[in-house]
């Protein structure tokens, strides 16, 4: 069963709700090693994206338009670090599904993987630098790998979710090399990276979405 524009609209709404529920928690995480606004940025961005995407006519708009609308809305609502990172992610996803009226499971996993790649390229960050890349990269790798072995979408994203959570948790012991936290030396040890935490929430939402479709 293919993934339609309508499904993607649901997905963006799901993400926005899950992020909103963690807004204050994400601000607290950012307060410890950053400037305390990451929850606000992600909440504003995801809400704007869901709203822009929700406003599209599913009969007219292909999945590529969904991702592009999300990119634009997220970026303009947020700025900050998260804005360009997620806008780039969504734009890459949009490019990867160009011309497709709806998405196969393979298409969807590929879109997911290029999102991770887009984030990494925009931020010029490597894994291990205590950023959201530490969540996105292992999650994308896991999804691709499980999909290559022929598993269903739900299973791909279950494994992605697990990898994301591990990657996020592992940022606790890392020094930061990118972003605001990179100036703090070993004072960041013991704190999870807020961008890694919000990424894990988003990936959990996607896993929920995939489970719901397959189940």
């Amino acid at each position, binding site marked *: 069963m293919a993934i339609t524009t309508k499904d993607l609209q649901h997905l963006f709404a799901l993400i926005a709700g899950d992020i909103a529920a963690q807004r204050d928690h994400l601000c607290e995480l950012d307060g410890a090693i950053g*400037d305390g606004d990451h929850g606000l940025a992600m909440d504003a961005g995801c809400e704007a994206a869901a709203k822009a995407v929700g406003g599209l006519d599913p009969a007219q708009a292909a999945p590529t338009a969904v991702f592009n609308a999300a990119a634009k809305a997220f970026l303009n609502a947020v700025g900050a*670090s998260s804005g360009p990172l997620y806008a780039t992610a969504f734009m890459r996803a949009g490019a990867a599904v160009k011309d497709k009226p709806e998405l196969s499971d393979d298409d969807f996993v590929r879109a997911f993987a290029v999102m991770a790649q887009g984030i990494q390229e925009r931020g010029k960050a490597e894994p291990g630098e205590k950023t959201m890349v530490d969540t996105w990269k292992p999650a994308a790798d896991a999804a691709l790998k499980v999909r290559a072995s022929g598993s269903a979408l739900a299973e791909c994203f279950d494994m992605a979710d697990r990898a994301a959570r591990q990657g996020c948790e592992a940022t606790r012991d890392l020094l930061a090399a990118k972003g605001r936290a990179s100036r703090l030396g070993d004072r960041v040890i013991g704190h999870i990276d807020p961008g890694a935490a919000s990424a894990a929430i988003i990936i959990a939402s996607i896993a929920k979405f995939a489970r719901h479709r397959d189940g």
Partner: protein
Amino acid sequence: MKTKKLINAGADAVDEMLQGVLVAHPRHLYAVEDVPRAIIARNGPRKGKVGLVIGGGSGHEPTFLGYVGKGLADAAAIGNVFASPPPDPIIACAKAVDGGAGVLFMYGNYAGDVMNFDMAAEMLALDEIEVRTVLTTDDVASAPADQREERRGVAGNVFIFKAAGAACDLLYSFDEVERAARHANARTYTMGVALAPCSLPQTLKPNFLIGEEEMEIGMGIHGEPGVARESLKTADAVTDELMDSILREMKAERGDRVAVLVNSLGSTPMMELYIMMRRVKARLDEAGLVIHTSLVGNYCTSLEMAGASITVMHLDDELQRLIDHPCDCAMFAR
């Protein structure tokens, strides 16, 4: 417990502030049509002049929009509180101030700002507007001296933007403006200390915790942790600690001239700033340095954070001329 603020909805604070700025300063500032976060100087931009676009998050007022005006920046792109503006208002600023001689982006060195301004520059390149970027990196506390380009930009912005804006106003070539801007940045040093946090309008909760007798040396202007947490000392001892770091790096010679800024992070009153200024002068005297000009007050704030920063710009003849060049901004005139 919530911080009390004179705001309406927290999410509207930045846009309502900008509306207030425009009605208060109609002769100085306007916003690009349909891009309310792109604030332009009425008398700044002109043909043949390099356009200077500054910008960054809100909450640092009068930085950034207070430094938009004739002789200083031509435009400021304004982000959410403590968040870089997205590319759209940056692009709108660049287009509004482009005089055909190039557009210079100047802003503090933060990952978010770099990504957004870079995206804007990429898009402007498609429109054949030539953009260059000079990041400000004056915060001594934020990286060792051999990683100067990793440092954050903080209150030194005021002097650095001022020098670059003067170079633009004097119709320096694009190359020369860029050189002067980098030169100004390279000779500007800031160290700050925070005593109490601020609260974002959307959360009304203190953005960091600090003990009743503590201070944070080198705290960032968004409340990012600094280099050390110590117990609060006297104004003279704190000033010495900040000046020690600055003087150590500056390597000035006796007789050299400096510009000084003693800046409140928000709620620290002028009384305390001038008490610090007195000590700054004593330390500069001791080092044989001459204060050419000084600013004391709220120049680069973090909402109502308590604390102060000291900026010293190590002048030479060119920087002195640029700092003395007249400017006429809504919140800053010389």
